[in-house]
């Protein structure tokens, strides 16, 4: 089972084991990590699941899709590696993945 590390804006770290096939958003909700809201349940319509992928992992988490890009355009703290976590499906290669969570989602 891949392990994902979520880092809250204040530096608090959560390392959790996640099943492959779930999304980085759902895994955060399933571990009650604050800082990911996921209001639309992963339908890519709400943008409340924004995260910043550690640059070392972007080649594995992949590209932003076009719907996602539109939503990311309006989030407050968009960065180079910003993603909507509901659009990142966890695979075995993501063991060790690190994502940071923006302050605005608290």
């Amino acid at each position: 089972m891949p392990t994902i590390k979520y880092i809250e804006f204040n530096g608090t770290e959560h390392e959790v084991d996640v099943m492959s096939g779930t999304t980085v958003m759902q895994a955060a909700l399933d571990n009650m990590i604050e800082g990911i809201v996921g209001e639309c349940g992963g339908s890519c319509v709400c943008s409340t699941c924004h995260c910043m992928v550690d640059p070392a992992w972007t080649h594995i988490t992949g590209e932003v899709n076009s719907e996602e890009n539109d939503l990311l355009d309006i989030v407050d703290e968009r960065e180079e590696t910003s993603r909507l976590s509901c659009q990142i499906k966890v695979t075995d290669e993501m063991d060790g993945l690190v994502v940071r969570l923006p302050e605005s989602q608290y």
Partner: protein
Amino acid sequence: MANVENCVIIGASHAAVQLMISLRQLGWRGSITVISDDPNMPYHKPPLSKAYLSGETTDEQLALRAAPVYEKLDVTFKLGETVAKIDRDGKSVVLASGEQISYAKLALCTGARVRPLPAPGTNLAGVHYLRTMDDVKGIKKSMETSKNAVIIGGGYIGLETAASLKKLGINVTVLEAEARLLQRVATEQVSSFFRRLHEEEGVEILRNTQASKLVGSEKLEKVFCSDGREIKADLAIIGIGVIPNTELAENAGLETDNGILVDEFAKTSDPDIVAAGDCTNHPSKIAGKNIRLESVPNATEQAKAAAASICGTPKEYNELPWFWSDQFDVKLQIAGLNEGYTDTVVRGDIENGRSFSVFYLKNDKLIAADCVNNLKDFMFTKKLILQDQVIDKAALSDETVELKSLLT
């Protein structure tokens, strides 16, 4: 157990799950007991007519939260059990099984149930409603052998179902009793767009048409319509709206009126009872009156207010309503409530295209929008509505003007 305060939650869906999480976040130390007549652990409802029906979402992905969450929350589930009565004097609920469970605080998250079709034949094999996971499992089973489906009701759920079935190669006819699709919830322009979309995708839409009789020897074979038309069908799905589950509250003497009446803090007329989600009728500052909504954002946000009331740290529920629907390659997002609009502005090609927005204005201020394949417009629209200022109509309709620039 005797000294521990118990919070009983009736219902185990979107409102209930948010409520239990918020209770713990706000420091509720007592026990939490959740009772629902749905035998399944809590699951996402929106995908039921969309990705779950079309097979893209699995049972596991449908779960609202993974099982360990409920252990951490220390919640006791009683699933497949119906609450028959609330005894407010004795502060307990009585289950249909006769079991009695006492509460210090009670949360009604009873949601809504499907409106039954007043026509004979609805108990034939191949005829389904669509509200629960088990409903969809039944539909999927029927789908294995079906070629021709009739969808009774052209609301969001009916149209989403039509799209999901069509994508799987089933012939689909939609019967709409009114003169247009989405009559109750959308404006004429938007209704026409959805009709065009479905017709372009090969769905047959019959308006001003009601199902009067479903017939078959064991299995559904034909749907008879009010205009005398007969449609060959081996699958029928009924989606003609929902009725809020208010009877429990009503019988317990709580005030109801198209929903359980609550204030802006999700409190009912009994200080120890809150209610949240599809079952409530609540004041809305944005609408300027009481409203009842059927949406996930409403259920979760109101549940947060309900939990806060239980924990004695009241937090007003006053969010901008929003909703979404997916049909074929179209993502519709609705921000605000368009009731009472005096003017509309269209941005984009609503006549021929599949990406546009319709804005609703009242006294020159933006109050709502329907955005089709226009995620960006939608997000800015939410902000523009809350800004509550007179808006430049020409700029709204001009696709070269970024909505962002209208924010002050």
